[in-house]
């Protein structure tokens, strides 16, 4: 495990020494503060739209950070050829995959905590309440979702040489699942065969990332989700992450790294 943590630490160091996170955080902060500064009908107690905008920006930023960071891990190591001195050490390719995953996931978690603290500060200053339980749940669920996404991206990065290809494809897939995941069965029933069958299979087989989006609970002050459901969703995320990581390892373990 210490090797995996060592690999993860390098990934985290890389993230906070690059500019991506800081740029996205500043952008999120500026847009949120701008949105909050607008006065609608001379009412300074209006807060939900600020929450909505801020949470949307947090979701987009966290997705971008996690996807872009994970997409470049293996390809960048291969391109910069740092993979060779690394694999010349007593570390297996499975440990490299898991270490990269853990590093990206932990780094994204840190970014999420910073974003949500900012969110709590801005919205709390307007409505003077801080539902920490709801915040904690929202952060945890988003972080769990990002575990699936990062594992998916790592799998893609084994097969696509260019990080941009992996990032684009993953963002499209994730965006599609978040927007359409809940409704895919309804859409399937409206299609003729064989599309109906295909979409139904996709609906049952795909990871349901939309479960992890608790923004509505925060925006509309709907309290917390039952902890049992959160626990099951966490297990689901762990299972899917494991599947993607295993598939990534299958693809990586016999790969000729010199070509």
């Amino acid at each position, binding site marked *: 495990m210490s090797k995996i943590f060592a690999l993860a630490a390098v990934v985290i160091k890389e993230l906070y020494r690059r500019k991506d996170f800081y740029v996205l955080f500043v952008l999120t902060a500026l847009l949120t503060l701008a949105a909050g500064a*607008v006065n*609608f*009908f*001379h*009412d300074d*107690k*209006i*807060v*939900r*739209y600020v929450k909505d905008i801020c949470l949307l920006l947090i979701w987009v930023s966290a997705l971008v950070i996690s996807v872009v960071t994970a997409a470049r891990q293996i390809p960048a190591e291969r391109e910069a050829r740092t993979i060779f001195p690394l694999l010349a050490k007593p570390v297996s390719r499975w440990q490299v995959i898991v270490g990269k995953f853990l590093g990206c996931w932990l780094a994204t978690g840190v970014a999420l905590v910073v974003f949500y603290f900012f969110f709590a500060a801005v919205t709390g200053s307007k409505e003077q309440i801080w539902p920490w339980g709801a915040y904690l749940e929202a952060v945890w*669920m988003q972080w769990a979702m990002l575990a699936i996404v990062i594992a998916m991206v790592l799998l893609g990065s084994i097969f696509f040489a260019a990080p941009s290809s992996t990032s684009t494809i993953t963002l499209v897939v994730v965006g599609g699942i978040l927007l359409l995941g*809940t*409704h895919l*069965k*309804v*859409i399937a029933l409206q299609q003729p065969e064989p599309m109906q069958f295909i979409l139904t299979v996709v*609906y*049952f087989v795909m990871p*349901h990332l*939309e*479960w*992890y*989006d*608790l923004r*509505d*609970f925060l*925006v*509309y002050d*709907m309290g917390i*989700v*039952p902890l049992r*459901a959160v626990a*099951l*969703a966490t297990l689901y995320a762990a299972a899917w992450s494991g599947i993607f990581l295993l598939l990534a390892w299958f693809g990586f373990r016999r790969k000729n790294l010199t070509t």
Partner: protein
Amino acid sequence: MKISPLSTLVGLLALAFTLATGLALTTDNWSSRAKSDNLFGMLFGDGRKLFANHFFTMADVYFHSGYYPSIFDKNSGEEKEIISASHGKKESEEDEKNEDFLGQPKDWIDAFGRNFRITQHTHLENHNEREILPWLRLAADLDPQKIETYTVGAFFLREHLGRADQAEAFLREGLRNNPDSCEILFELGRVYHDGNHDAERARNVWLLGIKKFFLRPPDQQKEDKLIFEGLVVNLAHLEDEAGNYGAAINWLQAAQKVSPAPGALQKQIDDLQKKLAALVPVTPGKLY
């Protein structure tokens, strides 16, 4: 002959200026977007109306605290303007509750996923209705010709938030952009009557509304008869409050001709006739 870069640059600038002068008149007719006095109109063209519709729907979503059908859900094809000035009436609430778009879970994924969705039908209240205002403001900025934005916004400002002055300002803005709108005049009259308790101004505005109504083409008058009914019924109530029962009866009789529920109006006419009979005869009010 060698041409210097500076000469080339000057030549190109002269060519560009000449072309611009020559083409200016021609391109003037291509698009009116750049001449729009609205920033969103300039940026998005007519596409701003799509955004306006979306933001109006967002106001509705906010009003229902996120419990709202998507475009894929049942009854999605109908134009559901759940958020309306008539909201708050018991019968419309009952209708809404019966239109539960979620239904039974389709499978275990749907069932489990409902733990993470808003599944309760609620409405904003206790001054939390303010949360819908930003979206209505944006919708009005994007599409100043969308009348419902002003009427709905003014309704909530007046009725739920007690801000008659802001409701009036919002409606006046709507009137500047839509000077012939009976709906805005109707809502403005309610602001004067219910908010400011100024019967005279309310009467003037509603009468203007009726005047605008009759300026519409006959086909459109048939489609918009409900707004006419609203105007004349409110005028009737105004006359009733002022003790002008004859005038009130005349208004209600005009409303009966277009109303889908003439029986209910007849009951009101009967009550007014009783009141009139109980009075010392006075000069009947003019029918406008």
